[in-house]
Each structure stands twice: as structure tokens, then as C-alpha cells.
């Protein structure tokens, strides 16, 4: 339809088409799918904004950033939703994002005072296993055990990068030794999360890198309590998912309204059982039943965006080095 509207605009009839403003939000693929938060979020926001919310998907978080870099200042996007703190430094470097004025009472284990990006959910990376099997309590115990794990490649997936930074945040310069210890536990490395999780469910591995909230899906949606996440004493690395407004948006007010809506109850209450992450602001009704069964890590690890950007390349080399032996 868009090209029709465009052609009509050329003919001078644009006024007739322009009554509903359109807000374009770029996000990752699983957000917009029927099973993600997208449909509910779109409906709830359109009820209050008097606008047409257009959600556009572009692969995962890293692909999303690449997309914005490709489009540059001419991007149609007004808001980008779905970067995480490992990507925000690079995102800010593009100079394409504007500051926000959202403030909220965040229910996150870390303080949030980023002027450019607003968080909407967060989670802990964790190794998920079958609940009836004993699980190691830290990376060293995992390395010493004969548990078989499947992880994701940091070069092609965001959880893979998260694991890299998890080990780095927990062990710093000791990270290469940890990886050497783990190398005989790694069954294989996959391109993305779906491949790895599928292999775990097929019985190819004892544990898979995922999130502490993964068992909640099985419990709530499938009434299956057979999956658990292993609690690690070093602490768990966090993924904080954020959204930001583009500086060149033609809908600055709507974009601000969307960011404010994002931390409101209507948005936050759909996150736990659609994105299967923790909401950034606890909804009025609290977390859904079943979330109380999840492990609560004693320590939350998160590298600042500057640290994450700085150690990323070196951590990748250490990882490649250890696993290529």
C-alpha cells in the first residue's frame, strides 16, 4: 500500500491520506511474531496514541544494529527496540540516536541512568538442564564435570556473545583457562539460539546456554516442570534489552510517547509470558505465577557498555583460541 500512498502524494492528494500518523519501530524477529509481545503491544499502544504503530523486524539484535547503520540518517525508523547493553556503545557511536526523557521505577538488579536508551526487559543467561539431573554450581565445576553443553557462536548470535562476556566478567584474565577447561564439555557451537535449544531438547546435550526464565516457558505454557536453570556461584551475566529514539525521526512526540508507554503497565505486563524475560518495571499485578520457581542468582554481572565494547574482541580471540585446540 505504501507505494500507492506515495504515488497519490505525488499527485497532490497527500492531505487526504495523512490523517493517521505512523510510528515505525524496528525490532527483532521474535518480538513481532504471533507468539511474541508485538501483537499485544501494537493493539494497546494504538488504543492510546491515535496512530498506526508499524513494527518491522530485522533478524536479531546485532542484525538490527547493522540495519540501522546501513540506512543511516535516512532511516524510516522512529524507534529501535531490541538492542542490548553489549551493542549500545556501537549504537551511540553512530550518532543516530537522540536522548530520551523517560524515568521509571526500574525493577532491575542494576542502576539505570542511560540518557539515550530506555530498558524494557532483562534476564540472566543460564545453563538450562533437565531438572532431575544434578547441576554444577559454577564454571569450574562444570569444566571438571562430564556434562555435555551446547552453546552459541558469539560471532553470529547475541546469547553467544553474552556467554563470552559472562566468563570475562566473572573471571577477567582467568577467562582463557576457564575456556580451556570447558572446551571438552562443549558438544558443539551453533549459529543461533534456536539450533542450540532444539539440540538440547533432542537429547544431544545435558545443558544448553539460554536464560533463567526458559524453565518458566515450559512450566507456564506447557505445564511441564522438567526443565531447570543451574544457579552459578560466580553470578549470572545479565542481558538488558533497550529501545531508543532516532534523532532524525519525523514523529518525535509519538516516539517519546512510545518510549514512555514501553515502561507502563500495558507493555510491561505482556513481557513475562511473551518475551519470557523479566519486565523492566514490575507490573501492578506482579509477575505471573510460575516465575517464583525460577532461580534468583546471588550476584548479577553486567559489564558497562564501554567495558563490553572494549573487551569484546580480545574475549572472542581467547574463546577461538581455547576451542580451536
Amino acid at each position, binding site marked *: 500500500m505504501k507505494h500507492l500512498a506515495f504515488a497519490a502524494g505525488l499527485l497532490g492528494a497527500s492531505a487526504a491520506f495523512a490523517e493517521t500518523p505512523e510510528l515505525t519501530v524496528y525490532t527483532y524477529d521474535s518480538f513481532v511474531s504471533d507468539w511474541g509481545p508485538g501483537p499485544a503491544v501494537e493493539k494497546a499502544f494504538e488504543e492510546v496514541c491515535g496512530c498506526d504503530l508499524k513494527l518491522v523486524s530485522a533478524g536479531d539484535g546485532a542484525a538490527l544494529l547493522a540495519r540501522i547503520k546501513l540506512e543511516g540518517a535516512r532511516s524510516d525508523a522512529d524507534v529501535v527496540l531490541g538492542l542490548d547493553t553489549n551493542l549500545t556503545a*556501537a549504537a551511540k557511536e553512530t550518532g543516530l540516536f537522540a536522548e530520551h526523557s523517560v524515568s521509571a521505577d526500574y525493577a532491575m538488579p542494576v542502576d539505570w541512568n542511560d540518557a539515550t536508551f530506555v530498558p524494557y526487559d532483562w534476564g540472566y543467561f543460564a545453563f538450562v538442564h533437565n531438572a532431575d539431573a544434578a547441576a554444577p554450581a559454577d564454571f569450574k565445576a562444570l569444566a571438571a564435570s562430564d556434562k555435555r553443553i551446547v552453546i552459541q557462536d558469539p560471532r553470529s548470535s547475541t546469547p553467544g556473545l553474552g556467554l563470552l562476556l559472562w566468563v570475562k566478567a566473572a573471571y577477567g584474565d582467568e577467562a582463557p583457562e576457564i575456556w580451556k577447561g570447558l572446551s571438552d564439555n562443549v558438544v558443539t557451537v551453533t549459529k543461533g539460539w534456536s539450533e542450540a535449544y532444539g539440540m538440547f531438547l533432542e537429547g*544431544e546435550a545435558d545443558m544448553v546456554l539460554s536464560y533463567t526464565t526458559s524453565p518458566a516457558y515450559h512450566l507456564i505454557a506447557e505445564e511441564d516442570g522438567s526443565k531447570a536453570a543451574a544457579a552459578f556461584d560466580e553470578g549470572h551475566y545479565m542481558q538488558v534489552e533497550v529501545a531508543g529514539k532516532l534523532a532524525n525521526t519525523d514523529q518525535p512526540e509519538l516516539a517519546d510517547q512510545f518510549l514512555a508507554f514501553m515502561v507502563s503497565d500495558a507493555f510491561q505486563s505482556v513481557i513475562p509470558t511473551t518475551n519470557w524475560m523479566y519486565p523492566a518495571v514490575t507490573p501492578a499485578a506482579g509477575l505471573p505465577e510460575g516465575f517464583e520457581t525460577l532461580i534468583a542468582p546471588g550476584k548479577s554481572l553486567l559489564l558497562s557498555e564501554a567495558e563490553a565494547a572494549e573487551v569484546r574482541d580480545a574475549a572472542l580471540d581467547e574463546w577461538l583460541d581455547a576451542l580451536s585446540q
Partner: protein
Amino acid sequence: MAGRAQPVSAFPGISAALLVAALILGTLGAVALRAEAGTGFGASDWAALRFTLTQASLSALLSVGLAAPVARALARRRFPGRSLLIALLGAPFILPVIVAILGLLSVFGRAGWLSSLLGLFGLEPVQIYGLHGVVLAHVFFNLPLATRLILQGWQEIPAERFRLTAQLDAGPLAMWRLLEGPMLRRVVPGALAVVFAICLSSFAVALTLGGGPRATTIELAIYQAFRFDFDLGRAALLSGLQLLLTAAAALVALRVSAGEGFGSGLDRAVRRWDGQGALARSADAFWIVLSAAFLLLPLAAITLAGLPGMADLKSSVWQAAGTSILVAALSTVILLGLALPMAAAVAAGRNGMTELSGILGLAASPLVIGTGLFILIYPIADPFALALPVTALVNAVMALPFAMRILVPRAREVLGRYGRLSLSLDMQGWAFVRRVYLPRMRAQTGFAAGLAAALSMGDLGVVALFADPDFATLPLQIYRLMGAYRMEAAAGAALLLLLLSMGVFWILDRGGRWHAEA
């Protein structure tokens, strides 16, 4: 052949070839031009190159090496269900990678059927991860294609030749020397080049079954350059390297496989009088059973996994299936529009470059093509509005190499046999195309169309970059279901995809064939 007058003009084919080359090289150029200062090649890239070449060579040799006896067995045996088996053999090739991997793992994995069977005898489970796992998966994907290509070579030997050799009482050795050997020498290099090139650009298979970062291919390095480093220059450089390798393999294959065909027969059904001995029969049975078990067991696993989820597929999955069918149909039309004139131009004997440009589609990285197209389209149009035609076009170009391998030998034969006759009757141009070329190409056109439609149905490559929520193909929907933990529904959608792809392949391939038993 060069220089001889031909009843068809090479011009449309050359134009099509230029279009294809412009698309592939143009997108690569667009990515390169957008690049900022890149880092160039590092030690890890050379390691990736070495691993890529090793696994692609092994995969090609093994796939084609196994395909030759399987194709021979299929060519000289008639049994109930044979055509169904041949259609089923095409299935692995069009599956989304993730579905195929999970299917293979249910058979060959640690908790798979084979390991369970070995466990009954107190043996260790099979270890699938490593170079051998990569090769196993690539053979699973490509053995069917190689078998079909070689089988077609057998079917192109006119029935009259077999009759003649039988009348001359030629033994198996003479049959081999006179007919089968020369045919294989023509067909095998092309099949090797195609499989080699397919395996060059593999990445999810190689990584997952390779066991880790040792199994890094050039395509993964392209991903890293694009996603992890946003180094477009390096992505373009690596993609160029991939193109060069494919072009080199293709040139070698074209050079080796040049040679005269067998001339043409009267399109009688092939009947064989040789290979009736018990030894030959059991050897053929061995190859057919072995290949069928290898290819069909993982498909059975996919089917079993998918049946429970098949019952309640959501409407969005059906909608995605509809989109996939539309893309596949459009893609097939585009493919035939490109491939038939290109095959005629190649057969008219003037165009090595045309044939080469038909091969390039194999080597192009979907990520680079998609990104390049995005860069080119973005300034002038809305990429999302063009998602359907762009996906169909790129899928057609990706399927072109297979179509060319299928169409060219037959086109050579048609022009060689009927060219002079038609010229002497003053039948040229459109009249020749309509009355001689197209009817005689029917079987091959059907096969090529079926393959293109099935490939397009299963393709994920470019659509991911252009998809908006309302435009999802079935493979994309499968990934979305998995990403939302709906593994059972994803398995159901995968089974639907398998059925649709097989169905479309069967209909088109069948529709093209008039040999009742071929």
C-alpha cells in the same frame, strides 16, 4: 560447434546471463562501495579458507562418488514405488538447515536411533561432531541432487544405443566403455562442481556438526564481518573470494566435461538388457536400499516429530505457507525465463561466460546479496514493499546453477540434432523455439522447475533481511516458532514445508515427463 549457424539466437540468453551477473556482482560491489576502512585478511580467514576447501572437496567427492552407483542402479531397475523414491530423494535438498540437522541428529545423534541400536549391543554412541559430521550432513543434502543429475545423464543415453549394444552382444565392460564411461565423464565434473560450490557457502551445518569454531567456513567469516564487526569491506572481500573459488571450480568442470553427446534417439523408454545377473541385481539392490535408508530415515524422523504439531497449526503458519507458494511460483517463472534462453545460448556454442554466470548464483552469499540489494533499493523504493519480488528473484538466481546443469546437456543435444534440419526447413527463431526446442526440453524443464520451486519454498536466505511481520515465508515462520520455544509447532510447520516442497517438486517434475516410466 562454434560459428555454425543456429536456429535460435543467443541474444536473449546472453542478456539473461548479463542480468544475473549484474545482480550478483552488482550487489557485491554495492556492499564493497559502502565499506569503510576494513581490516583485510587475518590468520583466521586463511584457516576458514582451508577448512572450507577441505570440507567442500570431501563432501563433493563423497556425494558424487556415492551418487554414481546409486544412479546406475536406479537407471537400470524398475520396481514399484521407484518414481516415488526418486521424488523423495529430492527432499533433503530443500529442507531448512535447522530442520535437516535435527532430523539427522534423531538418527545419528548421541540420543539418536543408531546410537540406541548400538547401545543394545553394549557399544558406544556414535560421535557425529567433527569433519565427518559435516561431510555426513553435506552428503545427506547433496547425494540426492548428484544422483538426479547423474541419473539424468543415464536417461539421456538414447534407448536405441542400449538396444544396439545389446544386439551386438556387448558385455558389461563394453557397455561401460562405449556408453556409461563417456557419459559419466561428461556429467560427473559438472555434478562435482555443483556440490563443491554448494558446500563452499555452507555455514550453519558446518558449524553445528563441525563441533565448534574449528569448523569456521568463509560464510561464517562473512557473518562475523557483517554482524560482529560491521566491516563491510571484509564481508565483500570474503564474498569475492567465495565467488572466485566457485568460478574456478566451474571453469575446471566445464573444461573437463566438454565433449560430444550421444546424439538423439526417438524418445523411447530406456530398456536395458544388461545387468540381469544375480550379482548385478544384488549390487543394485544394495545401493538402492542403502541410499534410501540413509536419506529416508532422517525424513522419517522429521515426519514423526512433526505429526503431533501438524494437528493444530495456527492460521499464521498457513498464511506463511501461502506466501511461500506464491514466492515459489514467481521464482519458478523467473527461473525458466532466465534459464531456457541461457541454455539455448550455451548450446548454440558461443558462450562460456553465459554458463559461468549461471554458476555464480551458487557462490553468492545470501547475506551479501541481501545487503547489497538493500543498499541498492533503499534510496529508490521501500524494501519491504518489494519483499516478494526480490525474494523470488534471488531464489531464482540461486536455483539457476542447478537448472543450467539440467537444461544445458539436453539443449546441446536438441540443437545438435535438429538445428541443421530446422535451418534447412527455414524454421528459425520463435517457430523453432515453439515447435522443436520447448517440446524437446519438456522433461528437463519440468525437473528444473520442480527443483527451483522446491528450493525457493525452503529458502530462508534473503527474506530475513526484507521481511516485515505481514510477509513471512514458511521457513521464516519455523524459525519464529522455535525462537518462541514452540518446538512442537515448529516441527509441525517443518513437516508441512516438507510436504509442500515435495508436492510441488513432484507435480512439476511429473508434469514435465512424458516417458511413462522414467
